[in-house]
């Protein structure tokens, strides 16, 4: 009955694991702080990312207050405003989303889902987190140095980023670049783990084409990140030298405020190429894990196999490969050779095809399913809505002629918030509601969850959908205030006020979510093992929640793909990946079932 019948040839030998004794930490310190268990590292990553993410959330409130009510907040001046948007963007993209998807979900789920005991280099994995924490601290330090953090925009374009007309040009930009370089070093340590673990530590029977799409998404995203972050690293180091040693990698001859500077011969566009060679794959570094996770949420909660699994895997790989060929679509109006426009327009629109296939397959998984409208499912549906919306506006901006009037307007802001802000965050929420019981053994509160869901989904849509129209109107991004501008009607300001109010409400709902996270850890309903009746391995561990080493004395053996839901002939509507073929029907099953490992909780 299983979809893929295993053959001897498909079996993958599990990586050699050291003595299981290793997995019994001796002291409180090695258990909770300097811990090498990927699950603990994941939680450390998640808490750190969440904490710095809160800072970014508060910054977004401040900037929205300024945009909605431009004359009311005298404590915000134009320099502050630029610092808010810069730090908000950088934190959200790098220190929250990248760290949470790869360092958080990657660490927690990869070893469990592929049936490994842990990451293959646990010590390096632990170092990865501590270097990440250091990067975050350096970033935070920039708020307290003279001149404050950099206000160069999250793209950090030189020459502006290191000249005195931009706030934070004294210390902020230096700390920013150092922090980024540290982040990349730390990430590389983690990334090596994720890739090698997927390649070598899969348990017996877990072929590549039996892996859950979550693992596929994180795996491919990690490869992208390993190959893309070096571009940012090189760019950051070069800019650091330009700033400190006055080299001229990116700095041409410049006359700043009437004064000749000591730079000559550099090329600002070189930085933009390096930045976007990293920056575009970065979009998919955030998107691909989201794609993978949402596939698993939809499949599990619709009790139906993911539609077109192999196509989904190929789409992830194709998107990953193509993402290295589209970077200059961020630069149509940068002044680069305009003939590049033809090439990058084509690659950009081509990437829409595999992306669209993924969307169709999610929706087709719902079709003829048995849809349980649980919180994870609701968030998955909301993800599809916002992702399709944001993806579609990407087709506007990918077409160079359409990009010309819309670039650097609020349309761009609305687009990328919808597609790589709201959509991935909704997946993260869905994923947290889904896997929270695995981590804590308790369910998140459903009522608070419903409130959180509806306010976040509808609120975010109300914020960003109308914002596109400010872009059509021609309102530029990164403006402290519009002032009296001829072509902008008063109603546009009213819309800005509306957006600000909604943004504050949505922000408040996140505090409810935070409360729910803490409260449910102590008072939440006990979930029982496998509350969602999922097939994937992370729910089939002998201990629940899983302990260090994950699998007790023996690692599981995998007999089927991750999507055996509602298989005809089977008497329950899901077959865990490690359920032996001779146990699919009830008659056989009762004989030697490991206690409760595959039984639904309810």
């Amino acid at each position, binding site marked *: 009955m299983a979809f893929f019948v295993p053959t001897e040839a498909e079996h993958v030998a599990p990586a050699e694991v050291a003595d299981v004794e290793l997995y019994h930490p001796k002291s409180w310190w090695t258990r909770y702080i300097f811990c090498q268990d990927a699950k603990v590292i994941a939680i450390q990553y998640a808490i750190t990312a969440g904490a710095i993410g809160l800072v970014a959330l508060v910054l977004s409130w401040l900037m929205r207050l300024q945009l909605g009510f431009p004359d009311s907040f005298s404590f915000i001046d134009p320099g502050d405003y630029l610092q808010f948007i810069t730090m908000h963007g950088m934190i959200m993209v790098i220190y929250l989303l990248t760290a949470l998807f790869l360092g958080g979900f990657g660490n927690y789920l990869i070893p469990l889902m592929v049936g490994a005991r842990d990451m293959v280099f646990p010590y390096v994995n632990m170092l990865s987190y501590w270097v990440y924490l250091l990067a975050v601290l350096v970033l935070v330090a920039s708020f307290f140095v003279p001149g404050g953090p950099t206000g160069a925009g999250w793209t950090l374009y030189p020459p502006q980023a290191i000249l005195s007309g931009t706030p934070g040009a004294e210390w902020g930009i230096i700390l920013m670049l150092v922090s980024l370089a540290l982040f990349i070093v730390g990430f590389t340590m983690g990334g090596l783990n994720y890739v090698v673990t997927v390649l070598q530590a899969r348990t017996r029977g877990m072929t590549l084409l039996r892996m859950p799409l979550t693992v596929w998404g994180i795996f491919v995203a990690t490869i992208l990140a390993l190959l893309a972050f*070096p571009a940012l690293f090189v760019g950051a180091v070069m800019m650091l030298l330009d700033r400190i040693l006055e080299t001229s990698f990116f700095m041409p001859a410049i006359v700043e405020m009437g004064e000749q500077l000591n730079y000559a011969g550099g090329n600002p566009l070189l930085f933009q190429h390096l930045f976007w060679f990293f920056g575009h794959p970065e979009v998919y570094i955030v998107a691909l894990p989201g794609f993978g996770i949402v596939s698993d949420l939809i499949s599990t909660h619709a009790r139906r196999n993911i539609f077109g699994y192999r196509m989904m895997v190929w789409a992830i790989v194709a998107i990953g490969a193509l993402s290295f060929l589209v970077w200059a679509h961020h630069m149509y109006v940068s002044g680069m050779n305009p003939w590049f426009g033809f090439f990058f327009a084509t690659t950009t629109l081509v990437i829409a095809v595999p992306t669209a296939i993924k969307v169709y397959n999610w929706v087709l998984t719902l079709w003829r399913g048995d849809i349980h409208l649980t919180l994870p499912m609701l968030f998955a549906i909301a993800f599809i809505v916002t992702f399709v919306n944001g993806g579609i506006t990407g087709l506007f901006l990918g077409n160079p002629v359409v990009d010309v009037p819309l670039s650097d307007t609020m349309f761009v802001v609305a687009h990328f918030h919808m597609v790589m802000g709201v959509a991935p965050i909704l997946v993260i929420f869905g994923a947290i509601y889904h896997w929270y019981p695995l981590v804590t053994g308790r369910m998140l509160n459903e009522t608070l969850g419903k409130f959180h869901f509806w306010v976040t989904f509808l609120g975010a849509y109300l914020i960003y959908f109308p914002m596109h129209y400010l872009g059509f109107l021609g309102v530029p991004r990164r403006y402290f205030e519009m002032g009296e501008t001829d072509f902008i009607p008063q109603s546009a300001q009213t819309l800005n006020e509306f957006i600000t109010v909604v943004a504050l409400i949505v922000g408040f709902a996140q505090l409810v979510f935070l409360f729910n996270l803490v409260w449910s850890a102590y008072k939440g309903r006990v979930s029982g093992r496998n509350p969602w009746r999922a097939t994937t391995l992370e729910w089939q561990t002998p201990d629940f929640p899983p302990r260090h080493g994950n699998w007790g004395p023996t690692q599981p053996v995998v007999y089927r793909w991750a999507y055996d839901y509602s298989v005809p002939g089977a008497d329950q509507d899901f077959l865990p990946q490690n359920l032996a073929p001779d146990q699919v029907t009830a008659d056989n099953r009762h004989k030697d079932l490991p206690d409760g490992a595959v039984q639904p909780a309810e």
Partner: protein
Amino acid sequence: MPTVKLGLIVFLAVVTVVFSLLVAAYTHRMTLADWRPLPEPWLLWPNTAILILSSVGLQWARVAANRGRIDGVRVGLLAGGGFAFAFLAGQLLAWQQLAALGYFAATNPANAFFYLITALHGLHLLGGLVAWGRTTAKMWRGSEVAELRLSVELCAVYWHFLLLVWLVLFGLLLFT
């Protein structure tokens, strides 16, 4: 394949990207009108020879480890490490030569690239020397050849890789 070796290969892929991007940026910058190449210090030639010897030393250790001969491993490791330190010292001297002639990093873009490229390469070698130090320490404590074999092999692979990177970079600096 041993897990650590695959890890090393993935890491080398990342480092390859770093240096490829630097080469791309360098060649792009070269095409601009005001490019003035800097004279390569003659010291780079002996330095290159020393780095080759360093690689040979580690290869020697690797072969000896495969044959189970601890004395060969010892000679190879020490020679490899020693030459690597000599190379780094030589690179620092080359910097000094250039600075003495008035070629500072900020003077023109070719200089800036030269300092950046050599510094990054040197830092990677320094990182390799940490791994080399651990292996050597293990050897000193009297580990069996079999326990050393993998570490020695990884060091050798990393050294050959850095030698290759250096030859490419040196060629680039020479011919432009």
